C-alpha cells in the first residue's frame, strides 16, 4: 500500500505578481501542492486507512491509557458559540468561563485538590507548571531549593520538566518490590529537595502502599509532593491524591477523561494544588462571584505557561466525558480498567513479575527482544504494548488494556501474546509481515535525515 506525497501529485507556483506590497517586502516565490478537493479527499482517506486508532482495535499501551473517545464529545466541542477569541472580556464570555469553572470544580473533587488551573496544554506542560509552582512557593518562603527527586521508573517528562525549570534531578532507584525504597528516599532527601514526583500506582501498576510515610518524609524534609496523573485512571472514586498527601498534581485528560490523542496531541494537563499553593497558580484563574464569572491573577502567580487559556476544545471534551460518567461511571471505569489488566495478566504466558496490579502490568519478553515481540504482535492484528520500559523489568511489555475492552478482545490480545511467545527468533526478526508497511529502518532514518519532501528532491 502506497500513497504518493502531495508534492508528488501536483505542485504549482503562486502568482505573487499582484501582491499588494512592495517587492522588497514580498517573497520571491512559493511552490506548494495544488490539488482539487476530490484528490485531497482520496489522499487523506487513504492515509487514514494506513493508520491504526482506538476504533481499529485494542491499543494496550501501558501508561498511555488509550481509551475509547466517545463520539458525542466531538459534537459538544464543535458547538460554535464556544469558539471565541481568547482575548474577549470576561463579561462577554460568561458561558465559557462557567464551563471552565465547573471543570475546575470537577477536577478538584476528583483529585482531592483545592484549586485547579486548566491552562497547561498537555501533561508535560502540567508537570512544568507544577514544578514552577513548587519553585515559586519555596522562593516565596525564602527557601531556595535546587533538587527534584524522581523515581528511576518515572516518565521521561518528569525528568525533563524538572530540568526545564532549572532543577537538578535526583534519580531514585526502585525497591525490590517495584515500589519506592524508603531507605533510598531517605538518602535522597535533603534541604535541597524541592519536590518528589511520583506516579501512583506507579509504572508497574503497583500502588505505593507507603504513600503516607513517603509524604511525611518529604514534608519533614521541607519538600513538596507531586502526583503525576498519568495513572489516575486506576484510582477514580477509590483514592485521591489529595488525600494521600500530594500537594500538586496534574491530570492527563486524554488518559483519564477519554479525550482523543489525535496522533500525538492536543491534550490538556490541568494542575491541581492544595490551598496553600493556590496563590502561585498561573494567571488568569476563573472565579465565580454572585453568579458571575471573572478572571483574576493569583497573588503570587507564576505567570503563564500557555499563550492563552490552554486547549479549550480538549477541555470541553473532558468536561463532557466527566459529566457523562458522573460518580458511578468514573468508579466503574477504574474498576473495569483494573479488572481488565488483572485478567489479561492472568492469561498470558510471558512472565509477569510483581503484583497485584492496578490498571497495567509489565510482562517480560524474557529471551526475546521486546521490540521484536511488538512487531510480531502487529501481525496478529492487534496493537502491541509499550516496550522496553520501565527498565526495571527486562524486555518490558508494559500493558494497559483500559476498561474499554471486552473479554473477547482481551482473549484475542492474550492469544496474540501467547502465539508470539512460542515463536522463534526468525519469525520475530521478519515481523511484521502482514502490515501495510514492513519493518522500518529507524537507524537509517536517523543517519540519513530526510525531514521534508524538499530533502527527497535532493536525492
Amino acid at each position, binding site marked *: 500500500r502506497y500513497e504518493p506525497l502531495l508534492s508528488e501529485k501536483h505542485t504549482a507556483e503562486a502568482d505573487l505578481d499582484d501582491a499588494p506590497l512592495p517587492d522588497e517586502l514580498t517573497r520571491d516565490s512559493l511552490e506548494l501542492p495544488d490539488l482539487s478537493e476530490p484528490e485531497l479527499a482520496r489522499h487523506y482517506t487513504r492515509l487514514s486507512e494506513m493508520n491504526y486508532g482506538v476504533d481499529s482495535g485494542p491499543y494496550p499501551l501501558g501508561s498511555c491509557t488509550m481509551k475509547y473517545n466517545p463520539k458525542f464529545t466531538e459534537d459538544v466541542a464543535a458547538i460554535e458559540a464556544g469558539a471565541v477569541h481568547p482575548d474577549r472580556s470576561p463579561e462577554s464570555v460568561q458561558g465559557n468561563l462557567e464551563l471552565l469553572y465547573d471543570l475546575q470544580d470537577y477536577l478538584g473533587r476528583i483529585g482531592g485538590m483545592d484549586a485547579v488551573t486548566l491552562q497547561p496544554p498537555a501533561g508535560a506542560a502540567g508537570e512544568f507548571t507544577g514544578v514552577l509552582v513548587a519553585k515559586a512557593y519555596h522562593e516565596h518562603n525564602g527557601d531556595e531549593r535546587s533538587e527534584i527527586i524522581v523515581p528511576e521508573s518515572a516518565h521521561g517528562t518528569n525528568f525533563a520538566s524538572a530540568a526545564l525549570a532549572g532543577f537538578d534531578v535526583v534519580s531514585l532507584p526502585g525497591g525490590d518490590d517495584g515500589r519506592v525504597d524508603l531507605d533510598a528516599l531517605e538518602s535522597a532527601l535533603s534541604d535541597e529537595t524541592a519536590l518528589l514526583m511520583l506516579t501512583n500506582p506507579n509504572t508497574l501498576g503497583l500502588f505505593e502502599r507507603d504513600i*503516607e510515610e513517603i509524604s511525611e518524609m518529604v514534608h519533614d524534609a521541607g519538600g513538596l509532593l507531586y502526583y503525576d496523573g498519568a495513572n489516575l485512571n486506576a484510582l477514580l472514586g477509590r483514592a485521591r491524591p489529595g488525600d494521600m498527601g500530594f500537594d500538586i498534581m496534574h491530570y492527563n485528560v486524554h488518559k483519564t477523561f477519554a479525550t482523543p490523542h489525535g496522533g500525538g*496531541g492536543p491534550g490538556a494537563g490541568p494542575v491541581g494544588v492544595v490551598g496553600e499553593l493556590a496563590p502561585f497558580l498561573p494567571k488568569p484563574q476563573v472565579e465565580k462571584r454572585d453568579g458571575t464569572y471573572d478572571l483574576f491573577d493569583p497573588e503570587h502567580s507564576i505567570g503563564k505557561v500557555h499563550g492563552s487559556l490552554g486547549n479549550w476544545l480538549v477541555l470541553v471534551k473532558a468536561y463532557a466525558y466527566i459529566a457523562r460518567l458522573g460518580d458511578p461511571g468514573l468508579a466503574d471505569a477504574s474498576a473495569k480498567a483494573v479488572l481488565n489488566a488483572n485478567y489479561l495478566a492472568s492469561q498470558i504466558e510471558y512472565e509477569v513479575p510483581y503484583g497485584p496490579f492496578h490498571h497495567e502490568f509489565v510482562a517480560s519478553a524474557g529471551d526475546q527482544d521486546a521490540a521484536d515481540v511488538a512487531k510480531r504482535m502487529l501481525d496478529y492484528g492487534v496493537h502491541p504494548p509499550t516496550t522496553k520500559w520501565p527498565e526495571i523489568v527486562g524486555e518490558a511489555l508494559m500493558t494497559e488494556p483500559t476498561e474499554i475492552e471486552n473479554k473477547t478482545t482481551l482473549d484475542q490480545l492474550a492469544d496474540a501474546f501467547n502465539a508470539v511467545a512460542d515463536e522463534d527468533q526468525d519469525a520475530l526478526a521478519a515481523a511484521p509481515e502482514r502490515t501495510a508497511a514492513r519493518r522500518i529502518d529507524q537507524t537509517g532514518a536517523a543517519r540519513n535525515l530526510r525531514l521534508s519532501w524538499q530533502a527527497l528532491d535532493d536525492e
Partner: protein
Amino acid sequence: MSGHHTPQGSPFAPHTATDTEAMLDAVGVETEAELFDIPDSVRFDGEFGIEPRSERAIRAEVAQTVEKNDDLVELLGRGHYSHYVPSLVDHLSLRSEFLTSYTQYQPEVTQGFLQALFEYQSLLVELTGLGVANCSMYDAATALGEAATLADRLRQTSGTRVLVPEQLADGRREVLANYVGGTDLVVEAYPMDDGNVDVEALGNALDDEAVMVYAENPTVRGCVEESLETVGDLAHDNDALFCLGSDPVSLALLQEPASVGADVVVGAAAVLGLPTSYGMGMGLFATREEYVRQVPGRLVGASTDDTGRRTYTLTLQTREQHIRRERATSNICTNQAWVALRAAIHAASLGPDGLADLATEAVTDAQELADRVTEVVGVKAPVHDRHHVREFVARTDQPAPAVAADLEDEGYAVHVLGEHQIQLNANALAEGEVDEFVDALAEVAR
C-alpha cells in the same frame, strides 16, 4: 446505551455480567474492589457529587452554557485569527483512524499519520525556507520559549541576553519568561520605531552577551516589518540567533524567513486548520538543518522498510524526553499533532494561490478598513505609517477604554492598547460588515 451493562456504570466499559464474573473468577477474586491494593487509611469513601447525565442532556447543557457568551464580531486579532476552515478539513481530520490514534511509536501501522506530518513539515519548510520544521508545539508562545532554550543550548559564549520587541503579546512575553526561568537567560525588550524594530536602538542594545534576537513579521500590531535583513545581520554580527515570529498565512506573501537570515521561525500555525477556539492553537517551529539535533519536539523522517519501499518514521528520538530524560531538548511529549494535520489539509486545499490570496486579502482588508475608519470623526488610522497585515492600530480622540466598551455594546470586540489607541483586525469583518462597523465606530468615537 445498552441496558444490560452495569447499571450506572461507564457506558464505555463493555462488560456483560457474565464476562465480569468469568474474569473475576480467572483472577481469583470475588469483586473488583479486592483488586485495589490501597491502604484503608487513604481509601476514598466519599462522593464527588457529580451526577451522570445522558449524552443528549450534556449536548443541550453545554450548548446552553456557551450560548451565554455574547455574540460579538471579534476584531481582536493579535495572534488569533479565524480564517474560514473548509468542511473538508473537519470531515477528513475527524476520521477516527487519525483522531483516535496515539503517537506513532509503531510506524508500520501508522504510516498514514506519519506521512501527513511529514507533509506538514514540508509545507513549513517551503513557507519558511528553513530546512527543518517539527511536528508542532503547543502554541506560538511556547514555541518562542523553546526557541530561547534552543539558543541557550547552542550558545558558545557566556551570553545571557534574549532581546524581544517592546511591543509583544503578553502571553508570549510571560511564557518566554517561564521557559528561560530554568536557565540564566534574561529577557530584555528593545524599542520599536513607528511599529517596526528600531534598528538603531537594537544595534546599540546588542553586544556579545546577546544569544537571541526575536522579531515579528507581521508584528503584534499588524505591521509589516521592513528591516528584517538588518535585524538578522545585527543578530548574526553579535553571534546571536535570529528568531522570527510569523504565521503560515502571512508567510505566503511576506519575505521568506530564510532569505532574511532567520535561524528559527516560530508562530501561530493554527491560523490554518482551526478557527479561533478560545486560545487553543498550534505552534510552528522551524530552524536551520544544522541545528536539527537541538530541535524540541517530534520529527518525522523518510526511511525504507524491509522491502525497500519508502516509509516514514519518527526520528532523532534521542533528543526527546522519553529517551534523554533531563537532558532532552524539551519536556514536550503530547503536542498538537492533530491540529498540524488540520493545518496541512487546510493549506493543501487552499493551494499556493489560495494561500497567497488569503494573505493578500489580509493586507488589503487592513488597508481598506484603515482608509474607512480614518474618515470617522475622532479616529485616525493607521497610527503606524506601515503596511499592515489583517490589523492596525487606530487613535481615538475619546478615551480608548470607553470607545471599546461602547463598541462592545454595539456588538464589536476590540483591543485597547493605551489611553487613546485601539487595535482593529479588519480581516475579521465579513464582506458587507465593514459599513456597519464603521457606522458603529462613528457613533461611539465622536
